[in-house]
């Protein structure tokens, strides 16, 4: 998977695996260096994603089983008596 296609979550998962591998110390230096480089790239990718993170659209499942954009109505509060 190319880094550009990676989600934030999968990048983090990969990072955790790499850290575990590196800390185990059982890998050859060359492989360790490769993993280290990969880790640094992944960290950069995650940081970029966090910095660029804007509000993701919230969705609601309608009665027709469609996902449509959802905004909480700020004014009304009639869903729950004491909500």
């Amino acid at each position, binding site marked *: 998977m190319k880094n550009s296609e990676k989600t934030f*979550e999968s990048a983090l998962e990969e990072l955790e695996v790499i*850290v575990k591998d590196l800390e185990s110390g059982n890998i050859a230096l060359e492989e360790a260096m490769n993993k280290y480089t990969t880790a640094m790239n992944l960290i950069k990718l995650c940081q970029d994603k966090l910095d660029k993170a804007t509000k993701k659209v*919230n969705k609601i*499942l309608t009665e027709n089983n469609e996902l449509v954009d959802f905004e909480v109505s700020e004014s009304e509060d009639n869903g729950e008596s*004491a909500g």
Partner: protein
Amino acid sequence: MMNTKYLSIAQINNYIKVMFDENIHLKKVYLKGEISNFKRHTTGHLYLTLKDDNSRISAIMFRSSASTLTFTPQDGMNVLVEGRISVYPMGGTYQIYIDKMEQDGLGNLYIKFEELKRKLQMEGLFAQSHKRPIPKYPKRIGIVTAPTGAAIRDILSTIKRRFPVCETILFPALVQGVSASPSVAKQIEVANKYDIDLLIVGRGGGSIEDLWAFNEEIVARAIYNSRVPVISAVGHEVDFTIADYVADLRAPTPTGAAEMAVPTILEVKNDLKTIEIKCLNAINSKIENLKHKLKQQKENYILKNPTVLYDIKAQKLINIEDSLNKNIMKKLETSKLALEKYQTNYLLNNPQKILELKKSDLEKLTESLYNAQKYYLEKKENNIEMIIQTLKLLNPLNILDKGYSLVKKDDKIIKDIADVKENDNLNIILSKGKLNVIVKEKIYEK
């Protein structure tokens, strides 16, 4: 009675109404009683009578208030009501206008709660072993709650504030009233069909009846059967529901659920920093370790004194050279001696003698060959003489000389009388000739 002022009925009823309405004690009353004569009007208003052992009072609950009821009122039901007492001038009756009505006997609800809790606990629905881990960085969170109200607003704003990379899908559900529990349970099931990695199920605070859907078995089972990990978020900190026990994680409030569900960006950045440091430390210690090993190798005695290595080899080479020389000389000596022996050999120096020896051998061989041949021929002659004697003895014609004869038919010798028929022509061979005969008669002997 001339001057007496007469009032209309409406006037007196209205006067009484004002008296009631202005009375501070009647503006808000709390009554406890049993429902009877319950009627739901097509307009949505509820008409009923509240009674206890000795008294009764008419009651009305308008549609707007009735819509908040979490239960369906029935005759015979014990209820607690809150409302005001006023007069219906047209009928001249006073009645209570109910704002809120709850089922009495919350003790019963408590018993129901405890019974279900015990049952589900026995069944293992609360088991720690069944709790699914909550993902650390969820990608898409499903939310089962009402689409309006504080709960969804709190959840969404908290997620947005802390971890805006996360998406949400709301699965709107009724969270209050009799339809709430099937609605919540169904939406939990529906949510499981979507690509979400975490589910928040809950609602904002309310009375115990308001929250009751989350104490229903159907909701508990839906949470238990969820593939996706569930955080429960029902009411306030103090409210504990069955859903909380079954859920993989219990949040005190909807806001709390969102906080448990997602990290803050700052936390994640710190995590990333930690990962970076870990990677750096790991790689550095790897390099240090290798450097150390390299240094150790460099300090190795032989590596530090390479001539030692050479000296040993050189010594070995000299030794080999020496022993090689010694062996070669020895071999040479032996060969020389052997050669000398041959050089002094008598026969090799006198070839004529060898020829004489061979000639004498040949003569001996020729003589013995002649003898062998002679012996062989004599022996064969003896054998032939012996065979002739034997053949003479065995000749069948010699037997004829002694008086025996042979009977033949068609040149075959007859041995059995059965081979002969009367009038057959037979030949009888005798010693000095033969007879041709015809069989006159066959006589069998026993």
